[in-house]
């Protein structure tokens, strides 16, 4: 459990480190990257499940975007594997249900079910990779600001920023609680419900007290319900953003309608 909590803190800190690199991708406005990611996801998910080669072609986007942003592709691929278990669980049924042959590789007949399974896995991996590249190159606070600029209500974006701001703090507090109980439980790894309930209640009560202190401190400093924008989250929409959106949208639409099967 403590490992999971530590991993979560590491992930949060890593996200803060990666969003301020001096590459072209990092300098772009969050809105342009968000729009391109949405166009990519819609195009990717609209490819029929039996079109393996068409789906494979969509790997162009994460490869190129990772390179433009100066990211190594292998860690992004490794992190995207998180999606595999649930997608594989759903896709597994297709293998048994759809058994007619779709194409042959020499003597090997590939069924519709296996193709659908592979396409589902690919979709899952590519969509997560697109999302990881978006957040790694933009950062959470800038992305929240972009959402606000795109019309999402301020009450909600303020809430998103608040959760992010206090997450590290509460994760550290959970680690401290977990260490305290581990020190007294003589090797027991899981806690029975009653102990767990008291543990979580302690965390909750501390959370409420903390929220009260924060609320008073913020009111004393003139908080009116609006979170001020941090200096590095302020970006302008420039010509590069328009070019990025138009360029990638054209490529993605092209990928969607150009089929390698028909070309060869």
């Amino acid at each position, binding site marked *: 459990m403590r490992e999971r909590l530590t991993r979560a803190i590491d992930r949060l800190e890593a996200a803060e480190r990666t969003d301020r690199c001096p590459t072209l991708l990092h300098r772009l406005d969050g809105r342009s990257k968000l729009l391109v990611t949405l166009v990519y996801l819609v195009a990717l998910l609209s490819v029929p499940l039996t079109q393996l080669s068409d789906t494979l072609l969509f790997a162009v986007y994460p490869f190129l975007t990772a390179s433009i942003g100066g990211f190594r592709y292998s860690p992004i691929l490794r992190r995207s594997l998180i999606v595999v278990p649930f997608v594989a669980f759903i896709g597994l049924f297709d293998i048994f249900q759809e058994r007619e042959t779709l194409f042959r590789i020499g003597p090997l007949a590939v069924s519709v079910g296996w193709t659908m399974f592979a396409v589902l896995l690919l979709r899952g991996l590519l*969509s997560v990779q697109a999302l990881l590249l978006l957040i790694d190159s933009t950062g959470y606070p800038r992305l929240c600001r972009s959402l606000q600029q795109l019309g999402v209500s301020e009450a909600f974006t303020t809430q998103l920023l608040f959760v992010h701001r206090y997450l590290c703090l509460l*994760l550290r507090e959970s680690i401290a609680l*977990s260490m305290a109980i581990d020190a007294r439980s003589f090797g027991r790894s899981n806690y029975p419900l009653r102990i767990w309930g*008291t543990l979580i209640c302690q965390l*909750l009560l501390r959370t409420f007290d903390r929220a009260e202190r924060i609320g008073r401190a913020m009111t004393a400093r003139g908080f009116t319900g609006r979170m001020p924008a941090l200096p590095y989250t302020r970006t302008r929409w420039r010509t590069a953003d328009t070019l990025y959106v138009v360029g990638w949208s054209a490529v993605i639409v092209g990928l969607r309608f150009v089929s390698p099967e028909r070309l060869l």
Partner: protein
Amino acid sequence: MHLSDALVSPEVAATAGAVSLLLLGAAGRKVSRQRRDDERLVPLMGVTGAFVFAAQMINFAIPGTGSSGHLIGGILLSALLGPWAALLTLASVIILQCLLFADGGLLALGCNLFNMAVLSCLVAYPLVYRPIAGTNPTPRRIIAASLAAGIVALQLGALAVVLETELSGITALPAGRFLLLMSPIHLLIGIGEGAGTAAVLCAVQRYRPELLRNDLPRPNRRKTARLLAAFVGCALLLGGLFSWIASSRPDGLEWSVERLTGTTELTAPADAPHATAARLQQRTALLPDYDTSFAGLVGTGVVLLVVIGTARLLRPTHKKP
């Protein structure tokens, strides 16, 4: 229960996204009004969101199974903050999980918000938890209400997942059999969620009973029914609209060809230029005798290799200090 982007079609994602956005908008307006009376609400929601995230990482042992479970938090947050503020708080946790930890897809966000946040905060809490717990709950009532609400929320969530994947055409498994698979798993998770919620709420009642929001006014049934009808109507309208856009009818060009020739498929004429072009294509094609799907795969592989090569060239070089 986090749905990945791979498991939903754009039409289903857009419909669920629109419904969830409408509800989040309504929650935002309600919370803004609530915020004027209670200035602590904003930090409270933010910090409790972070609390739910942290609490989800602390597991408890499920007796007799050897496995462990964790809290989801919808019912717990509703009991502490009220359903609308809880919806906004849980939604922020789900969005954070999606954006920072890739747990659930960006396009499937609407589905995940609906399945986990809307169904537990706006359906299971007011319709199951509140009537059972009552205004002055005893520990027994809290346990019964939490268990019932946890089970109902998770079962509704499982049903929604099945409907969304079936409507997206993702799985070849019939809806009934898929539901039979999902339902027992989520029954166990629901019992775990209910037990966890009850354990925390009982402890809160013992140590800080004033934190439980038992003083909330009873929901106006007529108003709730009108709101639900509006959202169902909205979902049906959006679903119909998107399915019309994505219909399998011929597109404009195909329609024109069909009007002219009576079919959407055209065959090439057997005259000399066409035959020569076909022969040339057969000779120059890299994989002429292979199945087109396999040929497509090989072609895509070649394109990807070229792209990977280009990508390596494009990567900015970092000078070592």
